[in-house]
């Protein structure tokens, strides 16, 4: 295993030390592994927290700051944080207007956030939770864990952050969040496996001539394993199931997001974006905003994902609003 780390047990703790030193505008609670905006809690504003296993950076800690999250809880690598952390974050960002929990749909994350919400309620903090579940690679059914939360989470944190900044109340902010989740779909693929530091070896074996279509952000195997193919065919394999799942034509257009899994260089991501855009144009889908880069990653996995989000005037307005975080920044 080749990684820039010390002891595998200290990876998250030590990375958080670097985050704190590199971003004086953030505050890190090392004991609880929480990244706060320096001025949290913001009086009268709905607090937004998220969190999840580490290894997906910049998600979530890199999205803490004005216009986005108020705090993010870092779990061990690929392991949901625990309720204690979420409770501490909830209390730390509660400015009197309640707190929204943004939860990616994984059994562990959902259960831990549920326990935290129960604890927070007992402490008198008003909490709403919204669960992202945008991954079309996974069959959606009442009888399974449901779809995974992936790329839409990034867009949701930005958009909902802007809504909270505008002073909307908890119910309204949660409503925006649910609207984003309902209108977004994603699909990912991997060229190589990631390696979890504590495991010391690749999570899965992927032969040199194969790729995994429908991968999750924890190296969970995907829909199917297929021979390597040119980027334009990979783009088809990702976009087609998304368009099948939701009608993205008409309306006010879409936000198209090509995300890198961690080890895929920007050169390839832009090339992929060109392919995705070409397919969308042919399919009659109008792109009004875009995002290209590694925003929700899977350690050192090579690969990418595509997320489409149906936009309307409100979402465009919220997307364009100023944001000032280490991972996404504009207008501020």
């Amino acid at each position: 295993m080749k990684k820039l780390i010390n002891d595998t047990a200290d990876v998250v703790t030590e990375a958080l030390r670097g985050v704190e030193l590199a971003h004086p505008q953030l505050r890190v609670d090392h004991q609880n592994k929480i990244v706060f905006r320096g001025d949290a809690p913001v009086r009268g504003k709905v607090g937004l927290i998220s969190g999840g296993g580490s290894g997906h950076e910049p998600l979530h800690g890199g999205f803490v700051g004005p216009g986005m999250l108020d705090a993010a809880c870092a779990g061990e690598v690929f392991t949901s944080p625990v309720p204690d952390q979420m409770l501490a974050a909830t209390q730390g960002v509660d400015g009197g207007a309640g707190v929204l929990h943004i939860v990616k749909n994984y059994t562990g994350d959902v259960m831990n956030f549920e326990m935290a919400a129960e604890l927070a309620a007992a402490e008198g903090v008003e909490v709403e939770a919204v669960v992202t579940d945008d991954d079309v690679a996974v069959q959606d059914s009442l009888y399974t864990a449901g779809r995974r939360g992936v790329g839409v989470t990034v867009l949701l944190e930005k958009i909902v952050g802007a809504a909270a900044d505008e002073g909307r109340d908890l119910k309204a902010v949660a409503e925006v969040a649910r609207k984003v989740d309902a209108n977004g779909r994603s699909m990912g693929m991997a060229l190589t496996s990631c390696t979890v530091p504590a495991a010391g070896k690749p999570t899965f074996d992927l032969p040199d001539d194969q790729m995994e279509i429908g991968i999750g952000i924890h190296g969970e195997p995907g829909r199917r394993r297929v021979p390597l193919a040119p980027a334009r065919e990979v783009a088809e394999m990702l976009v087609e199931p998304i368009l099948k799942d939701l009608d993205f034509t008409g309306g006010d257009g879409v936000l198209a997001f090509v995300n890198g899994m961690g080890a895929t260089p920007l050169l390839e991501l832009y090339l992929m974006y060109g392919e995705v855009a070409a397919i969308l144009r042919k399919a009659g889908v109008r792109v009004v905003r875009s995002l290209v880069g590694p925003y929700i990653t899977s350690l050192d996995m090579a690969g990418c994902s595509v997320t489409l989000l149906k936009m309307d005037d409100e979402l465009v307005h919220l997307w364009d609003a100023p944001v000032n975080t280490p991972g996404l920044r504009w207008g501020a």
Partner: protein
Amino acid sequence: MGETVGSAALGRWLRAFADAVSENADELTALDSAIGDADHGANMRRGMNAVVAKLDAAPDVAPAALLKTVGMTLVSTVGGASGPLYGTLFLRMGTSAGDRAELDAQAFAAALRAGLNGVVARGKAVLGDKTMVDALTPAVDALDAALTDGAGLSDALHAAATAADRGSDATIPLVARKGRASYLGARSAGHRDPGATSTALLVNTAAASLG
């Protein structure tokens, strides 16, 4: 050793479980690599190490308090799916233990069933979903059945351990419907469930250290 379970016996069991988790951590993680995210061994080891540290620090408490501490420690240190589930298992066992200083066989079995019910309430898995419930349910059933048949606690726990192992084996052909493995659909078949495997360790160490 004896027909009742007090805090000392619970401590022995939990330490034995911690050792078993540690020894089998790589295997648990390997199982989780195949159908999950390669952390179940690390998660359980982190949690059980924390539990052992708590036991070392405060050994002399009644069973209910001890079990609740174990549950809260697991909730606070494990994360993932197994944290809330194993945590709830022990929290509910603690509640079921009430103010007893010693749990007789019936009370221990009742506590374990309360734990199972907690796991099901929290995780909403049913038998056959390819989860820890598939090892825990037959184990609790076998424990009850053996006690009803007049067996002693030790024999009953050995029957429970055998049932847990069988339940863990039985997860292999199943298609997962809960947890991370469910994302795999049909591809999850042919792999043993990591949580069922660690639960079988839990019941086996109970058989070895209690009763």
